[in-house]
């Protein structure tokens, strides 16, 4: 299905990443948002509050993040595409309901505009310290889908992709933005509505009893919504196809297998990345989000010195792009993860790459983006090995 022209601000805009993400959500058909404003994500809820009522949407400013993250799921079960927006401290509070969205298989989007932590940290300064939290922050096992934008344009594009993936797989999806990308203003090209492809929610239309967790051939159960006349039960307890609690190992296993396989069987399809100057590279930088830009700059500087460096940019961070990373590790001598934390996605890269090549981290405490020279120093060290 194509986007609704009334909801798409087609044209060239000079806007920041947070505003671009909001326009992406609106174009994607999001009509419900619940949130509690927090720096550096506030521009998103500001724009939502101003734009949603004009395009048939609703925004509720809740009393806190815990309430926001459950309110948005009510929006989903009423039939709307829904989202919430926050930053690290809010994300920590939302973690219980991230788990609820996973176990109830509720399609929704969480945007995390990351700032330096832990705790209140640096509210106005950038970091990428919540990458592992997105995957592991709520208790129990679940698979995660997370995309990371490196520019306002990607904030627009990837927010649409997040909504599409959440509907396709019927699960929460994360946009892992950051302060710098969110507050940076650049040209954003919003295409005509008929060039924006949307995945719409699939509702049960059969005449038999609706089973909210009966998996279709693709492993994803159909949804219902208020008003369709179905009686069903949604719970955070382990449940059977009907949605009622059944507290046995057998049902737990069936439920978990179904949830894990939705993503696990589609890792290749979900994996998105770009490679730059990798044809003859001896050293591969790996990066994502805002850090990609500094890594690219460092790659150019190293190339000027005659060092053969390439760059892999992860667009999908979760599920981790294990196949391209493993293949790359067999081609190069050394891989360096560039990220604004003390080594989060590095651990994943290292897990797949270290039996084939040297691995290193160009990390940071957060607070500022890398200086390209810092990355160059790591490249020079790797080149000496």
């Amino acid at each position, binding site marked *: 299905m194509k986007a609704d022209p009334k909801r798409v601000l087609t044209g060239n805009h*000079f806007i920041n990443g947070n505003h671009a993400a909001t326009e992406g959500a609106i174009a994607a058909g999001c009509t419900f948002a619940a949130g509690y404003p927090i*720096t550096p994500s506030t521009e998103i809820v500001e724009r939502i509050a101003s734009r949603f009522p004009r395009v048939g949407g609703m925004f509720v400013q809740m009393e806190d993040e815990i309430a926001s993250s459950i309110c948005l799921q009510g929006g989903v079960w009423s039939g709307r595409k829904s989202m919430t927006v926050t930053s690290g401290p809010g994300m920590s509070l939302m973690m219980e309901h991230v788990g609820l969205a996973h176990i109830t298989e509720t399609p929704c989007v969480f945007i995390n505009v990351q700032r330096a932590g832990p705790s209140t940290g640096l509210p*106005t300064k950038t970091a990428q310290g919540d990458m592992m939290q997105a995957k592991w922050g709520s208790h129990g096992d679940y698979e995660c889908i997370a995309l990371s934008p490196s520019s306002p344009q990607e904030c627009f594009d990837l927010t649409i992709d997040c909504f599409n993936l959440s509907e396709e797989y019927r699960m929460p999806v994360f946009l892992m933005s950051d302060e*710098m990308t969110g507050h*940076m203003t650049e040209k954003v090209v919003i295409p005509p509505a008929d060039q924006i492809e949307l995945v719409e929610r699939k509702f049960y239309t059969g005449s038999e009893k609706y089973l909210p967790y009966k998996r279709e051939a693709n492993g994803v159960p159909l949804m219902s919504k208020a008003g369709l006349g179905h009686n069903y039960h949604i719970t955070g307890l382990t449940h059977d196809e009907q949605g009622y609690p059944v507290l046995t190992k057998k049902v737990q296993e069936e439920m978990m297998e179904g949830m894990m396989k939705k993503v696990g069987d589609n890792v290749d399809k979900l994996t998105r990345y770009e490679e730059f100057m990798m044809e003859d590279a001896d050293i591969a930088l790996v990066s994502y989000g805002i850090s990609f830009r500094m890594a690219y*700059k460092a790659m150019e500087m190293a190339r000027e010195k005659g060092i053969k460096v390439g760059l892999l940019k992860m667009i999908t961070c979760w599920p981790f792009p294990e196949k391209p990373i493993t293949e790359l590790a067999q081609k190069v001598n050394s891989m360096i993860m560039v990220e604004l934390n003390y080594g989060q996605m590095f651990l994943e890269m290292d897990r797949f790459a270290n039996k084939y090549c040297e691995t290193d981290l160009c990390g940071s405490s957060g607070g500022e*983006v890398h200086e390209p020279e810092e990355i160059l120093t790591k490249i020079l060290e790797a080149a000496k090995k």
Partner: protein
Amino acid sequence: MENREVRLGGFGGQGVILAGMILGRAKSIFEDKYATLTQDFGPEARGGAASCAVILSDDPILYPNVFNPDVLLAMSQGALDKYIDGLQKGGILVIEEDLVKVGNIDPSIKVFACPATRFAEEIGRKIVLNIVMYGFLVAVSDLVTEEIARKGVEASIPSGTEKLNFAAFEKGYQYGIEQKEKLG
């Protein structure tokens, strides 16, 4: 073309960030090239001081921070004092003449002064002082052409204010051309 880097600073309320937005919009939308604007989002942005930096380029911009701009526009003494040390040698310093006093600076820096607040009052509303200053900046810096710069203004102002804003732009631009000729 090498990147051009501009730092704009002043008091909150003078419209320095809007001036930066107009410049970036002109370059990226109307020249169809590249511009990246970043703002200071510290506590200082929530009171007296406001500042932003704009990078203009013919190629995609990677590194977004600006520490050593080649143009500094200072609309307050605080902005000048804070950012003057970062201005590149041979760079251009643009100041609000009545609000900023320039002390000892590197002799290679070209200084252009414009009484933008006074001009804006003469035009009719003090609120357009940032547009006067923007027109002046465009004239003395060659960051974008006059035509492109004007389109940036047109796309950034509320409808009904065109006459006022274009008068402000024109005033600043013409004064800039005069000053540039005068200073060589």
